[in-house]
């Protein structure tokens, strides 16, 4: 800033009048001198333009809105009370409230290990239902009225009892038939334990002599026919092949 005088005004005086000029508080001869100085002074002219520009930029800034919770937070921090009721924090929607309530639970559920466990459980359940022949589409037609459930219960119980009785009857018949068979057929000799063990103890790896085992001649077998000589042709009893 120089101290030179242009049109009867010093630069220092121009500087002091700058805000008044921008506030439009200058008039008359002073305003004329101010404008003349701004036109001719190499320092003060650009300075005036800059200050005017800066003021314009500042005025372009709008007032910002305070956060919605600010008053609430101030009241809590000062008086410890939320509000007297006249000013309230904007209530969050029902959806937000529900989400806020469920968020902690979902936070746990969303962990990978829980997700994997739930996935496996669901998979197991669906597999079990599928194997058991249960279809979800059938469940839609299920009558869930108390009377219907009660009737279904008794019907199911009746079916189970009937099935059990049928099975019991069949077993009893089978048992009787087995007794009759046993009574009509001659007694079979009990297998010799030593021989059986002998067969099982064969660990030589050699193939078993089947023909000998199935058709071998035992000492106690009755000889029904024989060629001249000692070799028998047929025997009265045969034994089932023991596998």
């Amino acid at each position, binding site marked *: 800033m120089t101290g030179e005088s242009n049109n009867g005004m010093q630069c220092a005086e121009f*500087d*002091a009048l*700058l*805000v008044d000029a921008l506030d439009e508080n200058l008039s008359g001869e002073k305003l004329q001198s101010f404008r003349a100085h701004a036109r001719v002074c190499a320092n003060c002219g650009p*300075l005036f*333009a*800059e*200050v*005017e*520009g*800066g*003021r314009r*930029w*500042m*005025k*372009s*800034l*709008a*007032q*910002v*809105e*305070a*956060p919605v919770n*600010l*008053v609430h*937070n*101030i*009241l809590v*921090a*000062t*008086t410890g*009370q939320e*509000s*007297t009721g*006249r*000013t309230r924090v904007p209530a969050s929607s029902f959806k937000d409230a529900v989400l806020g309530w469920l968020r902690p639970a979902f936070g746990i559920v969303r962990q990978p290990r829980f997700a994997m466990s739930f996935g496996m459980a669901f998979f197991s359940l669906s597999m079990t239902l599928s194997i058991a022949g249960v279809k979800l589409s059938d469940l839609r037609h299920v009558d869930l009225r108390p009377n219907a459930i009660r009737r279904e219960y008794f019907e199911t119980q009746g079916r189970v009892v009937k099935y059990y009785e049928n099975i019991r009857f069949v077993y009893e018949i089978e048992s009787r038939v087995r007794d009759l068979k046993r009574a009509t057929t001659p007694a079979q000799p009990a297998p010799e334990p030593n021989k059986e063990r002998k067969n099982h103890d064969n660990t030589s790896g050699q193939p078993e002599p089947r023909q000998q085992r199935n058709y071998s001649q035992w000492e106690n077998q009755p000889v029904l026919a024989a060629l001249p000589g000692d070799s028998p042709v047929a025997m009265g009893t045969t034994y089932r092949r023991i596998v």
Partner: protein
Amino acid sequence: MVDAQVVAVLVRRCLAGDAVAWEDIVQLYHRRIYNICYRFAGSADDAQDLTQEVFIRMYRTLASYEADRGAFMTWVTTMTRNLLVDHFRKSKHDRMTDSLDTPISEHEDAMPLGEQIPDKGLPPDARVQTLETKDVVHRSLQKLSPELREAVILRDLQDMDYKEIAAVLKVPEGTVKSRINRGRAELARLLQRTYKQVM
């Protein structure tokens, strides 16, 4: 502007323990104080904390307010300004060590300082599109020295007269005018440089 008598009654009621009167005071002044803090501190989070701090201090020292010594608005603004100066001093070290990658705006998508350094590789029109005027002005304001910043904020954003500003800043009116002039000129130069780089 709220009538001085109304405020005086509110203060008296508040001092008598009337919670409603205190809530009225908070309602009347919180937006103004928040704006001063936001424009001075530059961050919405800081502004919220500082505003809360101003009201806590106000609540504790309300009894020390004397209506005949000045307007309640001046008293509140002085308190706000003192707190902002304290905050500025405390956070000076943090700002000096601020990372180039840290955005100065509270918005997550704001450009970090590193990206604000002009890069001749990008086309100018792309830069113009990404820069919002108000955000640029707000960020340029943060680059002014605190003395100049507080003066232009109180004058151009809060519309306080020179006498009130002088009372808040505790400096003569001439100094206030000089600071306002220098602050506006500096801001214009900063923005001119920014847009020259952009264009």
